[in-house]
């Protein structure tokens, strides 16, 4: 028997749990409706590994300092200014408090993982990753009396007189209707709905891989937008990276990333290069390659490297395609042999002095006289065995979402909806107009989850 509670939370990831814990501690009854089964609970938070956190002095596990201004500048750089300054500064300034709050509620942290040293100052890593975090939060929520229903798909949030009137959901094949006092939407983006993605992106989107949970289909988002709830962000904006083309269609998560691009040449299916592979260090560039690959024919790219570079990057989840000659590699990758060889010959001829090659810094080892140039780490592809990886566009989450104010409250053209709140990826588009800053998704989820939980509890009491 599913009974009514003061607050219903749609979604079961980090933002939902932060909201649930906060509200339950404020003394109201809370019920989480998670559309995934227990084994897949936690939405995209399952796949995360850290959150970006400001701090003026070192604080375990973060080193040195990362102040509000630097954080905000980083955000402005990646979004090219497309952010809501008030909300962005709210997230940044409250991120520090989140670290302590998360620890108090069961989160464990670790030093930044090997291969991610560049993030040791800015990002606090969860011990065991996001699923470990989610497990700890579910334990805390359970301890606080939060009810959780898995396999519960919310189909309709009914608004009446600019207020949430009822929630419709299916569970074990049955329809249910509940009448909570307040509702928090924390159900993520719509990226797992490929039809919607294709509407926004065109048919090319059908070749995209969804890196995260298959359960973020944007059902509630679509339902609320149809009822006039205000939106934020563009439907074609999302966090998209170039990942291993052999990745599973959904839920491949972190392991599908490929870090070889800076040491490779990347060609499209016609065997032509299309962008400077050595523009910057990979952590600063991986997020643009999703879009670059998406713009190529059949939305596919191929990174080609040789023996010299195979050990310079984090191991891939699937072994690379390997061949002793470029001809055989072309065949194995199903690329046109002559065209690939021509591209590589031209590239190799454009490589100059490589004695200053340095894999971990911008070394200025660049090509001369070809377009596009490769401006760092440009070494000829000439030492067998040769290796190839296919690259596809991997979507993490979409940015079209619900517009909220600093109380995490949603609104329609008729004004604020007093009992509807949103947190997490479903409202992150307010802060991320475009681009992405590693770890900020979890920061937005935690800050707004806590705000939503607090404000919803005040309303429901």
């Amino acid at each position: 028997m599913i009974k009514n509670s003061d607050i219903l939370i749609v979604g079961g990831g980090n933002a939902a749990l932060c909201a649930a814990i906060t509200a339950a501690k404020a003394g109201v009854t809370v019920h989480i409706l998670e559309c995934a089964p227990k084994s897949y609970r936690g939405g995209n938070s399952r796949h995360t590994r850290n959150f970006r956190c400001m701090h003026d002095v070192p604080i375990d596990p973060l080193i040195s300092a990362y102040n509000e201004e630097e954080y905000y500048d980083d955000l402005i750089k990646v979004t090219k200014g497309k952010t809501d300054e008030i909300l962005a500064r709210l997230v940044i300034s409250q991120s520090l408090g989140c670290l302590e709050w998360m620890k108090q509620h069961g989160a464990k942290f670790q030093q930044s993982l090997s291969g991610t040293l560049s993030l040791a100052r800015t990002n606090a890593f969860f011990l065991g990753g996001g699923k470990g975090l989610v497990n700890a939060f579910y334990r805390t929520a359970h301890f606080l009396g939060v009810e959780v229903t898995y396999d519960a798909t919310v189909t309709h949030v009914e608004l009446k007189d600019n207020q949430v009137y009822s929630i419709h959901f299916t569970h074990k094949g049955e329809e249910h209707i509940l009448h909570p006092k307040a509702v928090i939407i924390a159900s993520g983006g719509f990226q797992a709905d490929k039809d919607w993605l294709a509407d926004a992106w065109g048919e090319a989107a059908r070749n995209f891989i969804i890196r995260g949970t298959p359960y973020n289909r944007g059902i509630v988002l679509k339902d609320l937008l149809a009822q006039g709830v205000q939106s934020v962000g563009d439907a074609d904006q999302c966090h998209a990276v170039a990942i291993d083309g052999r990745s599973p269609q959904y839920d491949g998560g972190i392991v599908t990333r490929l870090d070889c691009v800076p040491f490779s040449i990347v060609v499209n299916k016609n065997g032509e290069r299309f962008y400077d592979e050595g523009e910057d260090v990979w952590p600063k560039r991986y997020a643009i390659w999703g879009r670059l690959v998406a713009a190529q024919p059949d939305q596919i790219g191929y990174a080609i490297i040789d023996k010299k570079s195979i050990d310079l990057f984090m191991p891939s989840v699937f072994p690379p395609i390997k061949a002793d000659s470029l001809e055989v590699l072309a065949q194995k990758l199903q690329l046109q042999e002559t065209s690939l060889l021509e591209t590589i010959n031209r590239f190799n001829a454009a490589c100059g002095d490589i004695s200053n090659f340095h894999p971990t810094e911008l070394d200025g080892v660049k090509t001369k006289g070809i377009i596009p140039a490769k401006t760092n780490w440009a070494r000829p592809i000439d030492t067998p065995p040769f290796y190839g990886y296919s690259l596809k566009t991997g979507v993490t989450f979409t940015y079209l979402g619900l517009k909220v104010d600093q109380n995490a409250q949603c609104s329609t053209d008729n004004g604020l909806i007093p009992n509807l709140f949103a947190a997490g990826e479903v409202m992150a588009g307010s802060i991320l107009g475009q681009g992405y800053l590693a770890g900020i998704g979890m920061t937005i989820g935690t800050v707004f989850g806590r705000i939503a939980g607090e404000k919803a509890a005040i309303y429901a009491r």
Partner: protein
Amino acid sequence: MQDDLFKEASRQAEICNACRYCESYCSVFPELHKLREFNKMDITYFANLCHNCRGCYYACQYTTPHEFNINIPQIFAQVRHKSWQDYAWPRKFATLFYKSGVLISLISIISLCFFSALLNLLPQGEGEGFYRIISHNILILIFIPASLFPFISLSISLRAFWRDIGGGKITLKQLKNTFMAISRMHDLASGHGEGCNFEDEDRFSHSRRYAHQAIMYGFLLCFASTSSATILHYFFDIKAPYGLFSIPKLFGIPGGILLVFGCIWMLLLKFKSDQKLGDTKAWGSEYAFVILLGIVGLSGLLLYLLGNTIFMPSMLSIHLSSVLTFFILTPYSKMVHAFYRVLSILKEKEID
């Protein structure tokens, strides 16, 4: 079959190597992340370094129903058991014992009967306490070969293992660090020091760590008790039975209590834990091993308590036969985990 096991372990390790989220749980992952490809010996080493704390399983994004189907605690448990069989000498015995915990019990009973029969045959007489029942010389006659054999067998196995995992010369510092880690069972404390996941899914608790330490220290105290008694007997001509404040008793009584308590606790924990995160085929032999250890401890305590009653002879035969069984089975039972684990941690503490 065997190659499939290593292939599967290698497939999973490659996924771990691309993920690395579990780096801080235990010693296995930092070792694994040093390599890009894994051969059979690498996998065998990781598997024997793994304490089955299960932290990585519950934190993993790729466990079933995900298509990657990662279950590191399980595959490493399987490889571990396989490796103990492969290294065991003689090998045939090991496979036999691995497959059947029941057989362990059977041998126990047979030797029990053997002892009882022997006791009945002997004329009552000389000596004090239980040497009235069975003379010390007969005890030695039985136990020397029974302990020499496991010693020889284990030496052969462990030498091969140490060579194969690339173990070199052992330094003092390495030894110290290894025994520090073992004395606190560091790898069952998890990266945050709050214990492992065992009896209640993803909840961290120290239960298994403490139960294991109770067994380990209990066992070591009992071992010290027996050794000290042997020394007293041969070098000081002080013969059993020993009084409450004698060295053997001061070791033996707390040791026995710890051992029995630890074994019962461990059995209860094992009963609650998810079998699919271990080697399900070894479940019987693992249970049997803990029970056998518990019986060794319990019968020893009872023998002391009932030493002056009519139950003494039967208690004595139960105790001696369980000890004998334990000795003979050492190279083939779960007891070997201690030796392979020590060597693996030694290897891990090597300075690269």
